């Protein structure tokens, strides 16, 4: 069954139509990648799903409930959250405090401590740095903290916006390993990523956006072999549909 079903989603900023009626569905426990050149509308899509974008239209069903137009905190409390682009950890707060913030919306206080231990097991570097200001962490550590934060908010579905942005290749390896761990633990993931190969390595299914519309979609393995992808990215003249 689908955890997330997006139908005819449009996003407009004033007179700019950033997303023009797209359909996406994410199976429960699946990892779906949303690819496309910069400016294609990937981030706008995630923002709209999360209640961050004003001019969104269409239908977004999360576990069967239409959540479009809900304030973000309500969506989060229902079990879906986003790791925003650029990580956006609370720089003046310590690692520990960042993690505490993530649990504010939770009702099941009793299980928080256990969850926190699990998160530290998954991200040992955060345990080492738990008393440090988040702003003093390296980019990779901040990204791990952002993932850990989302995890601790007890989300079942995570939207990841460009988790590899600005990170060294080695660090990206670590982050992607963690993302695979999350999937293994049963989380459903929708990943926006500019690093196409890496994304396709771990995704089950992918959509390619260009100019606010979906130009390609299919199982990740198939897209990996497609030449059309390079065209969508590198601005080569488009062939008659791939």
């Amino acid at each position, binding site marked *: 069954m689908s955890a997330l079903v997006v139908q005819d989603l449009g996003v407009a900023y004033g007179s700019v139509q950033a997303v023009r009626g797209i359909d996406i569905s994410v199976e429960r426990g699946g990892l779906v990648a949303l690819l496309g050149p910069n400016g294609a509308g990937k981030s706008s899509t995630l923002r709209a799903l999360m209640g961050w974008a004003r001019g969104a239209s269409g239908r977004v069903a999360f576990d069967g409930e239409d959540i479009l137009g809900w304030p973000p905190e309500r969506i989060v409390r229902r079990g879906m959250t986003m790791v925003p682009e650029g990580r956006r950890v*609370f720089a003046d707060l310590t690692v520990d405090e960042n993690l505490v913030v993530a649990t504010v919306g939770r009702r099941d206080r009793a299980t928080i401590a256990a969850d926190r231990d699990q998160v530290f097991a998954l991200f040992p570097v955060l345990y080492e740095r738990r008393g440090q200001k988040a702003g003093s962490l390296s980019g990779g550590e901040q990204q791990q903290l952002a993932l850990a934060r989302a995890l601790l908010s007890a989300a079942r579905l995570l939207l990841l916006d460009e988790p590899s942005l600005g990170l060294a290749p080695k660090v990206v390896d670590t982050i992607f390993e963690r993302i695979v761990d999350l999937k293994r633990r049963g989380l459903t993931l929708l990943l926006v990523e500019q690093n196409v190969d890496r994304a396709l390595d771990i995704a089950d299914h992918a959509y390619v956006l260009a100019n606010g519309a979906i130009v390609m979609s299919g199982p990740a393995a198939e897209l990996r072999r497609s030449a059309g992808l390079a065209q969508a990215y590198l601005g080569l003249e488009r062939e008659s549909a791939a």
Partner: protein
Amino acid sequence: MTIELLLQQVLNALSLGGTYALLALGLAIVFSMMGLINFAHGEIMSGAGYGLWFVILVGLPFGLGIVAAVVTGLAIAVAMEKIAFRPVRSASPAALLLTSFAVSGIMQVLFQNLISPKGRPVAVPDVLTGSWTLGTLHVGTIQALSIIVTLALLAGLTVFFRRTRMGIAMRAAASDFDVARLMGIRANAVIAAAFGVSGVLAGAAATFWVAQRGSVDPLMGFLPVLKAFIAVIVGGLGRLEGAVAGGFLLGFIEIGLRAFLPDDLVAYREALTLALVILILVLRPRGLMGRARESVR
């Protein structure tokens, strides 16, 4: 000048600066969440003063009056957010400022009509009006209490902001409101809490103010809150530590001028205090602890 006199002035400065710091901190907490400089903060303070006055009037003990002041401050602040500021929450800073300006004017008239345009005396118990003598140092009981309570409040708030879930959530919301909501923090709740805290602080400040002056009037909050505004700006808009530092700085400047200004200039004390503090902005337009505006994006 003797050491005693100097110590005496330091105590005075701590007492006065502490009151400014409480007011400035309340303003800064609200500002950091929603970009509002609350012009009507002074009316929260006056309202809290009237809470104290009323409890004394009906013959209840002063201790209860303090509770009443704090509760009234909290109630007015939370109600003000809900009624006046929620409809304009996402408006420009200028629109927010003008809204609070109007609220301030309306509330002053309400106090004038519902209570009295004139000052109302508040009987302060003898225990509080006395003073202790330590060697050659005279310490007013209220003054001592105000220093102790202010420091206790600041310490308590530090614990609240560092140790409690709500406190940490508020710091998170102050640093990145949108992402805080991604953590499940309710926008309405956290802003109401910010106003609540600012109201409690204004209530405490009102208690000290009234206890030292023995009366409460509709315009009581205006001047101290004006100075708190300036403390907030000088400390660096949106920086909580900056606001507290700015408040104490203002207290020291004001007491310093009061103590050392030649007699023929004493009349200009308020003016000189404000001018000196505003001049700090020439050197640091973003305030003492303000961050530069430059950023990556």
